[in-house]
């Protein structure tokens, strides 16, 4: 009997190892990121000369090879797949997000080269290594379907974020890193306690398995709600929505602009994916997640928009705007229809493009004026009309007005939730719809405050009137799509519609 068991186990293990080595090909992009990370580490240790060029070359080559691998996987995609013993899920949703994350990582590095303190990120090998660690973490977050993997990937992203906030010298940076760390550690601990109860209820960590769903259906409503809300807490923290948003304005103000542009997009979208996968398996009868996420979305929109009105610093304003955008991202999820999922993904992709464009312009402004407060940016648009106009386009797009792609994104999200309301008749959806639209009007005031300061306030004559050619080119490359996709959004929508959201 015992020997029979042992042989069974041995052959099972052999099969499992065989499966794992097949799965390695599915994880080729992640392996590419890890190899880049190791090369960066080795280069940083071995070479002293031409460090900036070498690190930049390795980083961009690594991102390019990751992007190529992902494109290859996307084109040859046949069917959803569980990899690494059901720890991760290989599907089109994660592939699409990983593609735009790779692009986002590259744009973040471009922004780093545009700063007044040129190449500060490339000078220290450590921050490049940690940046790629963050990229690996967000890749894994998009694929996680196991509670252990969700916890680990969220922690990888969190720990890398703490380091990136505080690694460069500065009093404000160290303070922001400490606040970020304390909020992050507490919310991760709360999430972990929730996860431990979910494991206790179901006896499994695999959220896609039938045992998990069966286990949850047998639990009384109150303990289930407490465990699920605690688990959601850690993910909401990464999403930066109310009530776990307190860290974001401080971190955004203090951290380097390139790093902030990555913080404000990649982990948020990755957290949204985890949230999507988690609520996907919860039938509404046991746990009214639409109500809870609806309240979170409403609170984020209202709090983010109204707090942004009083900000004196552009980066801080963008931090509050990103809290509001986290609310808008949730709107598509709450609709809980095929159209809502597509709209959420469209909004996410466009939010990423808009935010990188906005932070590129902030980096250019910082380079010319040495500060990112509204007062110091007076007259910037008059001195540098081209950059000023680009900033206006980005702000209009973030508000969600035509003729920019921000309008399409908001249109899709709100039409999805309106349609969902007409079918499901859930009053939460109506509230989200109405308050969301009203919030867009509020957003208009603070987004247009920047153009007002740039063009209509007389500034000092000291602003240098010369915009470098590279800034011209990058500004055009990042802002032009916002106008182009307003007219050609079908192009992206066709790609998104081909994604199969069925779980």
């Amino acid at each position, binding site marked *: 009997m015992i020997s029979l068991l042992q042989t069974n186990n041995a052959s099972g293990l052999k099969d499992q190892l065989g499966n794992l080595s097949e799965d390695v090909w599915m994880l080729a992009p992640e392996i590419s990121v890890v190899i880049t990370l190791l090369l960066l580490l080795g280069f940083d240790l071995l070479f002293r000369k031409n460090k900036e060029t070498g690190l930049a070359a390795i980083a961009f080559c690594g991102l390019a090879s990751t992007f190529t691998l992902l494109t290859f996987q996307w084109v040859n995609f046949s069917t959803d797949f569980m990899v690494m013993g059901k720890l991760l899920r290989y599907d089109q949703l994660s592939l699409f997000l990983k593609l735009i994350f790779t692009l986002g990582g590259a744009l973040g590095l471009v922004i780093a080269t545009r700063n007044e303190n040129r190449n500060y990120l490339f000078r220290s090998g450590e921050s490049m290594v940690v940046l790629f660690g963050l990229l690996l973490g967000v890749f894994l977050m998009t694929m996680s379907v196991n509670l252990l993997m969700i916890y680990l990937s969220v922690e990888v992203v969190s720990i890398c974020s703490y380091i990136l906030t505080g690694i460069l010298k500065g009093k404000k940076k160290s303070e922001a890193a400490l606040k970020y*760390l304390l909020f992050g*550690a507490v919310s991760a*601990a709360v999430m972990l306690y929730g996860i431990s109860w979910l494991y206790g209820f179901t006896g499994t960590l695999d959220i896609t398995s039938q045992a998990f769903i069966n286990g949850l259906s047998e639990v009384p409503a109150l303990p289930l709600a407490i465990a699920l809300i605690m688990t959601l807490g850690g993910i909401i923290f990464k999403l930066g929505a109310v009530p776990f948003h307190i860290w974001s304005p401080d971190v955004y103000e203090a951290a380097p602009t390139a790093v902030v542009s990555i913080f404000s997009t990649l982990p948020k979208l990755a957290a949204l994916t985890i949230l999507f996968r988690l609520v996907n398996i919860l039938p509404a009868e046991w746990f009214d997640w639409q109500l809870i996420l609806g309240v979170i979305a409403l609170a984020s929109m209202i709090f983010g928009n109204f707090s942004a009105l009083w900000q004196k610093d552009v980066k801080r304003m963008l931090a509050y705007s990103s809290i509001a955008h986290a609310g808008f991202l949730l709107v598509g999820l709450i609709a809980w229809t095929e159209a809502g999922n597509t709209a959420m993904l469209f909004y996410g992709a466009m939010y990423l493009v808009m935010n990188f464009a906005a932070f590129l312009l902030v980096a250019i402004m910082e380079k010319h004026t040495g500060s990112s407060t509204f007062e110091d940016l007076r007259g910037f648009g008059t001195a540098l009309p081209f950059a000023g106009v680009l900033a206006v386009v980005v702000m209009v797009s973030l508000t969600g007005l035509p003729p920019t792609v921000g309008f399409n994104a908001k249109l899709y999200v709100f039409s999805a939730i309106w349609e969902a309301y007409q079918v499901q008749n859930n009053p939460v959806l109506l509230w989200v719809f109405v308050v969301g639209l009203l919030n867009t009007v509020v957003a208009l005031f603070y987004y247009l405050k920047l153009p007002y300061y740039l063009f209509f306030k007389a500034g000092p004559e000291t602003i240098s009137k010369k915009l470098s050619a590279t800034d011209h080119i990058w500004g055009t490359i990042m802002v032009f799509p916002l106008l182009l996709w307003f007219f050609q959004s079908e192009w992206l929508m066709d790609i998104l519609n081909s994604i199969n959201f069925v779980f």
Partner: protein
Amino acid sequence: MPVEHLLFLGAVLFCIGLFVVLTRKNAIAVLIGVELMLNASNINLVAFGHFDPDFLQGQIFALFVITVAAAEAAVALAIVVKVYQYFQTADLDKISELKG
């Protein structure tokens, strides 16, 4: 030992940890509170893992948590040292340059 006792211990430990986090002003004390909360989850995981004899997922999870907690503590203490260099204190009320 019945599993209820372990779960009760975990819940008490979690509440003590949360209380420490919310009331203490010193950054190091807050970190100690976080460690208590993490260990409360570990007790839960190991207790529940007892009913999962085939895969022992709870025990494995607890091992991962211990490792991650160590990594987090290393980063946390490095940041606290850095903050101390600039502010000459680890009192969270006095570390407030960023406002608004």
